[in-house]
């Protein structure tokens, strides 16, 4: 219809340049239109006395519009557009042959439909005007001679790489345009920005032809799993699983975490109505030290066409060894005893304590030898930074020298340790902390003054963040957890600390008489580490006021202590760009090496041993990053699927700075099970950004004529008249007819 009215396809108007061929100045056109409108106004006023004023205005407007149209036509309007020269340009036709293209919809697979379209005249029509190159692409790009050679067996869809490959291959050829047949189920999170910029710069239009349904009728898909990749042995871990479903609203499904055939945890969930992403939590235990490959699964549901997207794999490294926490306490008190007891039951934590029993005496517990902490609280970074976390009980701020306070600050900021401040009669403002150097790192603004510590029982409640936090999980079931917290006895005491700083979150609040609540457990990141406040010294009452078999107090404290040390960086930090590599073999590794005092370590030698599934170790050398001090990088080719273990050692001359390890997993043929529906949005975006057009497969017959309008390749500029467009004549006729009909109706003829 558009082409019938406007003579040319829409693309011509989108790409063309509008102009007047008469050569007369445009101001004259504007002046004549204005003069004609004025003359008509005088005429209508002089001869239209029988009509009401508004009606005269309508008649004048119609006559003026007609006059303006005629004047514009006199100026000879035209459009200039670039078109590809016949038989001198190449058109690249890319067909997605990943496994998702083998999905059957009605009786034909997606690829069958593409092959039918290509063989049914499209290639012939394109071949009549251009040189056509046919490619298949999935994880790679390959040229084929005819559509019958296409087979949907690729493990992944890498659209960006395919486009880059076509650009490379045709770099010496006049590429006039690219046609992509795909379901858009790209496995590489879209197309690189630089590649898009290059395509735009070369003005190569990419026409995308969408294949497949935009929705799978009955499907549950696990889109993501967020879970820590490192954990301490026997830790409770929380995995957040994102699920998307179509056509299965309200159905019950079984969500599980497995290691091989062992089910570590499972729970029933109800699939949400609507198409929004649903997030479910599942808790499980990290178990014994070692690397584990975990499978998160939704059991297949009745009617599901695709079940390969019900599973996701994650790798978890359970790190052996004890994390060391230093707890300094200013006076003997029950909180101290019961925190120690909770930590004693945790094999992953060594709670070293320094207790000021009398004015000048300190009692050390859990020390490695007689020398440890013999001189009191550490004064050297190398000693303090040997701990992963620090607990400061009820002790005056001025107990610490300014140098020690600065050291504690650097312990958090530079070393990345955690510090927990406990409430007590010498804590926060009562202990002079408001004016100390460490006030800056606290997650609360300390209320100045005193008498903020009260030995009165107080009830606590979880905040929303507390409900979601693993620290406060006394029970895996959220409702039962809430019920357990509601049944907890009052704390023996509380302290009002002050308002939360921006970015700080409170996990537990206390209810004071008169409905006032104050934060009890607050945390905030500071530098590379984290600072927490637990504004009480009375959680021991949870132990003494509940049955001796109740584990609430122990669980809470173990989880709190573990949260403080589980992510504390060591002197060497090793990371990979991903944990799971789906159909990818390029692994980028990054090691950050620090000295004993956690200054970035330059001139270090960083070497890794990489062990794959075959058990054969290989050596990998890291190179210093040009951008960052103390950072070393390496690229690794994980050629075979399976789990890989990387153990890195950083040393400087004869001094070993530290060791670290990580595990990643490479899997093939899994990515194509995900997002199997047509990603129309991506295809439309590619077409729009490159000056091409998105096509439905049914309309693709028109593509050969429209692809002609391109500025890439060898083009010619054509100027085409617009005055003879049928739309112009219909418009003139419509204006005249409207005026005549109105005059007749109003009795003015």
């Amino acid at each position: 219809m558009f082409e019938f009215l406007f003579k040319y396809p829409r693309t011509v108007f989108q790409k063309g340049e509008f102009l007047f061929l008469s050569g007369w100045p445009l101001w004259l056109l504007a002046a004549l239109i204005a003069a004609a409108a004025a003359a008509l106004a005088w005429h209508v006023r002089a001869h239209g006395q029988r009509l009401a004023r508004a009606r005269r205005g309508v008649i004048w407007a119609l006559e003026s519009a007609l006059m303006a149209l005629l004047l514009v036509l006199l100026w000879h309007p035209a459009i200039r557009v670039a078109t590809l020269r016949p038989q001198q340009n190449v058109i690249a036709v890319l067909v997605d042959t990943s496994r998702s293209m083998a999905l059957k919809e009605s009786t034909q697979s997606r690829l069958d439909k593409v092959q039918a379209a290509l063989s049914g005249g499209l290639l012939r029509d394109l071949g009549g005007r251009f040189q056509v190159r046919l490619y298949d692409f999935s994880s790679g790009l390959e040229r084929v001679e005819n559509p019958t050679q296409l087979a949907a067996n690729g493990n992944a869809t890498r659209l960006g790489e395919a486009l880059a490959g076509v650009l490379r291959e045709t770099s010496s050829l006049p590429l006039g345009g690219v046609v992509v047949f795909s379901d858009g189920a790209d496995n590489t999170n879209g197309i690189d920005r630089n590649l898009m910029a290059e395509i735009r710069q070369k003005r190569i239009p990419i026409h995308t032809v969408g294949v497949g349904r935009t929705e799978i009728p009955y499907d549950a898909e696990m889109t993501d799993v967020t879970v820590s990749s490192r954990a301490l042995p026997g830790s409770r871990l929380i995995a957040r699983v994102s699920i998307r479903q179509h056509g299965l609203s309200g159905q019950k499904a079984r969500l599980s975490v497995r290691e091989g055939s062992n089910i570590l945890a499972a729970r029933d969930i109800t699939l949400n109505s609507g198409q929004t992403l649903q997030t479910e939590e599942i808790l499980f235990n990290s178990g014994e030290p070692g690397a584990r490959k975990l499978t998160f699964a939704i059991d297949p549901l009745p009617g599901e066409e695709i079940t390969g997207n019900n599973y996701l794999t994650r790798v978890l490294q359970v790190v052996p060894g004890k994390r060391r926490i230093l707890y300094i306490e200013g006076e003997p008190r029950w909180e101290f005893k019961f925190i120690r007891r909770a930590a004693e039951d945790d094999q992953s934590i060594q709670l070293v304590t320094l207790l000021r029993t009398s004015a000048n005496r300190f009692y050390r517990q859990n020390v490695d030898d007689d020398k440890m902490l013999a001189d009191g609280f550490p004064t050297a970074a190398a000693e303090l930074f040997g701990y992963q976390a620090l607990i400061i009980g009820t002790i005056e701020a001025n107990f610490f020298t300014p140098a020690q306070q600065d050291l504690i600050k650097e312990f958090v900021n530079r070393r990345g340790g955690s510090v927990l401040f406990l409430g007590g009669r010498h804590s926060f403002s009562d202990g002079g902390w408001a004016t100390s150097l460490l006030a800056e790192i606290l997650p609360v603004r300390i209320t100045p003054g005193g008498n903020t510590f009260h030995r009165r029982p107080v009830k606590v409640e979880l905040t929303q963040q507390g409900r979601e936090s693993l620290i406060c999980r006394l029970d895996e079931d959220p409702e039962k957890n809430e019920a357990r917290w509601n049944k907890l006895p009052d704390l023996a005491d509380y302290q009002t600390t002050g308002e939360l700083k921006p970015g700080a979150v409170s996990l537990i609040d206390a209810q004071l008489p008169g409905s006032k609540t104050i934060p009890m457990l607050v945390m905030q990141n500071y530098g590379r580490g984290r600072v927490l406040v637990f504004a009480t010294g009375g959680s021991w009452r949870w132990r003494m006021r509940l049955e001796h078999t109740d584990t609430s107090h122990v669980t809470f404290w173990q989880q709190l202590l573990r949260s403080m040390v589980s992510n504390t960086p060591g002197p060497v930090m090793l990371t990979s760009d991903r944990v799971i590599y789906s159909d990818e073999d390029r692994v980028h590794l990054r090691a950050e090496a620090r000295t004993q005092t956690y200054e970035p370590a330059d001139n270090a030698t960083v070497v890794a041993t990489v062990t794959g599934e075959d058990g054969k170790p290989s050596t990998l050398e890291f190179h210093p990053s040009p951008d960052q001090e103390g950072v070393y990088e390496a690229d690794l080719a994980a050629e075979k699927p399976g789990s890989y273990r990387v153990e890195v050692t950083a040393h400087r001359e004869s001094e070993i700075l530290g060791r670290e390890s990580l595990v990643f997993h490479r899997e093939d043929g899994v990515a194509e099970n995900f997002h199997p529906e047509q990603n129309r949005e991506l295809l439309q975006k590619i077409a729009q950004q490159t000056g091409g057009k998105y096509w439905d497969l049914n309309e693709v017959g028109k593509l050969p004529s429209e692809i002609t309008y391109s500025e890439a390749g060898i083009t010619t500029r054509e100027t085409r008249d617009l005055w003879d467009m049928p739309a112009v004549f219909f418009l003139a006729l419509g204006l005249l007819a409207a005026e005549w009909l109105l005059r007749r109706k109003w009795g003015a003829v």
Partner: protein
Amino acid sequence: MNLRLYRRWLGASCALLLFGAPALPQWRQWRQMMAEHDENPPTPNPDEETEFYFARLAYRNGPGARRWGQAWMTDSPAADRYFLQGVRRLTNIHARSREQYIPPLDNALFDYPWIYAVEVGQWGLNEAEGARLREYLMRGGFLVVDDFHGTYEWAHFVEGIKKVFPDRPIVEIELSDPVFHVLYDLDQKVQIPGIQYLRSGRTFERDGVEPHWRGIYDDKGRLMVVINFDMDLGDAWEWADFPGYPEQWTALAYRFGINYITYAMTH
């Protein structure tokens, strides 16, 4: 009165007639000194809310109790208050100056993780009280028992403690145990006598010649109960400022007591 008690009463009466008469002037002098002693030291801010309370277990007398009145009250409140003065002065423990009495079946027992029971050779615990004390100790409470002497009182104590822990062994606490070193290094087990020493000149009472520091441990090797057998720390505290009572025993009793509290707050 059963036959055994009757015989003991008769024996004691004869002994008093035979040996007591010559000692009468000395007895009068001792009584005079007692009367001049201020038994109730001052308690500054007695209602202060603190971390530590000297909680005294208010048990019932057992059927074979030697003593009239309430045995659990022995030495109180003077012993408690003198001792608390020492705790407040010598340690960083935030302790209230006044004592606290707590019956075993009172729910508030669980708010006092350290309790002291005196004259436990005369206590009477029923099953419910035994179960309550067991639960208290299993949760993390700490019990110090003191001032009982000789075979007879030991047997009576054991009868009661078996209601608390029927199966847990009572063992000698080795000198190497942290309870003897947590704040003060106590390297010798010196018998600390009661005030009767001033009359009798003996550091022991009845047939309790050898002092014993015994204890009951939990499954993780932590002391739950400290048993001061054949000694009397309570008297040593009570007569702390009494010139007649030897200072070195009071000092030692303070050190043992402070170590017990510190141990309970650290282990």
